[in-house]
């Protein structure tokens, strides 16, 4: 009788696991139509047939080839990479910081990046002459701004890591340090903005609008070079994150080096965020909301939560990016405006609906 109970146990569990795998498979499949739509829709529509032909390298009209490969595909790939990276970082952060508000933004990383960008606009970028074809976008020197934003976000991450090492890597220490640094960098940015002239100010504000259209193939390569290994690291740690969720001591009892995991994960997530926001600007809310949405559907088992956040983040940002191109067509909104507009109501709805846990 004992054996029978045990068998139904295992059968039920296998079914339950298969259901989670199914959710991930569905998310993955949903990326295909989302990608085709992203490549097809926009101010200049490309028929779906031409999109597919162009993608597989078959004989497509030259106009479609150019639109797909030079304009829409880099933007779509950047959106997917950034969405995936931000969401998976958020999921990892929420686990190690044991805080539902955990995301690299809670730790002041994006504030630091914004400060870095503003500083480089003041120091170097603003000297550039606005070019005729680029308009406001070319007011600053993109390479200097990106490097400076990246440098300062890493500095913020390093500071938090350092303080956490000295004071013990507890979630409280890390969150409080992050919030404090965030407000320090915000103050710094405001200080710079106060002394900036109109052109510089415009460049600073413009930079903060996260926009996937900025990415070149080279940028995408760099973002991917960070996103891939960091995501693999996160997924490899899935059991350790599960253990940490049960409490630090329980995790230690299961052989997890809790402090080290917390520091490395924090740094890896910051790095991943830093690389996408330095190239694309600040895209808020994806890192916070996607893991929560995914958790509602498939639970907090990190074996599934992390891959699903990765794919869910890619999907969400890709769809939001396409929508941002369409809502006020022919005007194009930066995707960051839309993620918050979409994200907040969805998030509030989830909170209200899920009142009983």
């Amino acid at each position, binding site marked *: 009788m004992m054996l029978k109970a045990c068998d139904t146990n295992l059968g039920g569990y296998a079914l339950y696991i298969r259901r989670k795998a199914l959710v991930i498979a569905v998310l993955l499949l949903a990326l295909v139509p989302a990608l085709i739509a992203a490549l097809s829709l926009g101010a200049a529509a490309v028929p779906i047939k031409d999109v597919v032909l162009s993608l597989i390298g078959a004989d497509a009209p030259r106009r479609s080839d150019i639109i797909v490969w030079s304009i829409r595909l880099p933007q779509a790939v950047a959106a997917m990479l950034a969405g995936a990276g931000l969401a998976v970082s958020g999921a990892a952060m929420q686990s190690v910081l044991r805080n539902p508000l955990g995301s690299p933004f809670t730790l002041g990383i994006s504030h630091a990046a914004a400060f870095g960008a503003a500083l480089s606009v003041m120091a170097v970028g603003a000297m550039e002459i606005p070019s005729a074809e680029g308009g406001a976008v070319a007011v600053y020197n993109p390479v200097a701004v990106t490097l400076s934003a990246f440098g300062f976000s890493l500095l913020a991450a390093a500071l938090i890591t350092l303080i956490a090492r000295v004071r013990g890597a507890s979630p409280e220490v890390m969150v409080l340090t992050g919030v404090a640094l965030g407000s320090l960098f915000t103050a710094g940015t405001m200080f710079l903005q106060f002394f900036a002239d109109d052109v510089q100010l415009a460049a600073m504000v413009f930079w903060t609008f996260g926009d996937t259209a900025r990415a070149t193939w080279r940028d995408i390569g760099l973002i991917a070079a960070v996103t891939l290994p960091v995501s693999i690291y996160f997924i490899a740690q899935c059991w350790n994150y599960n253990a940490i969720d049960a409490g630090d001591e329980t995790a*230690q009892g299961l052989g997890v080096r809790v402090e080290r995991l917390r520091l490395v994960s924090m740094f890896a997530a910051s790095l991943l965020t830093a690389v996408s926001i330095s190239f694309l600007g600040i895209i808020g809310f994806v890192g916070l909301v996607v893991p929560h949405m995914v958790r509602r559907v498939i639970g907090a088992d990190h074996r599934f939560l992390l891959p699903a956040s990765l794919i869910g983040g890619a999907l969400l940002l890709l769809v939001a990016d396409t929508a941002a191109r369409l809502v006020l067509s022919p005007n194009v909104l930066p995707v960051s405006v839309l993620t918050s507009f979409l994200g907040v109501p969805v998030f509030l709805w989830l909170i209200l609906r899920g009142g009983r846990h």
Partner: protein
Amino acid sequence: MLDVQDIHFAYRNRAILNDIAFDLKPGRILVILGPNGVGKTTLLKCLNAIQKPKAGSVLLDSENLLSLTPPQLAAKVGYVAQKSQTARLTVFDAVLMGRKPHMGWRVKDHDLAIVGETIARLGLEALSLRYLDELSGGELQKVSIARAFVQQPRLLLLDEPTSALDMRNQFELLSLLFSVVRERKTATVVTMHDLNTALRFADEFLLLKDGRVLARGAVEEISPKLIEATYDIPVSIHTIDGAPVVVPKPTETPTATRPTILAE
């Protein structure tokens, strides 16, 4: 065979534990008793290096546990913390986590079978696909113990394992613990507040007082005098239906005033 030698532990220069030494044979249960804040939990954590003792060694089959890496240690020592947190994780997954020290990234059928069997044995089948954050405190405690069982340790450390369980569950769980420990020859160290339960299920006791071992021995040898010396309250020990029962005997009995309050 567990052999604990001269454990010293200090928290920022404040000495908590001094000269703690004891040994324990496989398949035996030792209960650590002592007043609140004496360092029972700390001692337990020193045994599996969650807290690093200033000096001393913990030998399990002549291997010093304190010099092992955390994963190596986890394969030998199971630890059930006093408190655990909940997450949106199913009971089955939470128990499966106990196999972590023995498995790689992939879960094998063997691991699943152990988990399934343990869940059935603890009577958690009906809950196996429920999320932890939907469980009661007592059910959660059972899950933590199930996790330690599937870890199949040679040394099992339990910190107040039954504090949230009702009488029946407490009795059943401790009986099960007793038989599992005997069957697998696991040396088991447990902290407990309830003296009656402790004396009934443990084989040996260790009394802690002011950071030192006041006395240790087989539970049959415990005396009212030792308990008074530990807890500063006079007691008598009776045997009722074969079970030892400790009855506190305060010098002034407060019971006399109670009826008057009720009468008001």
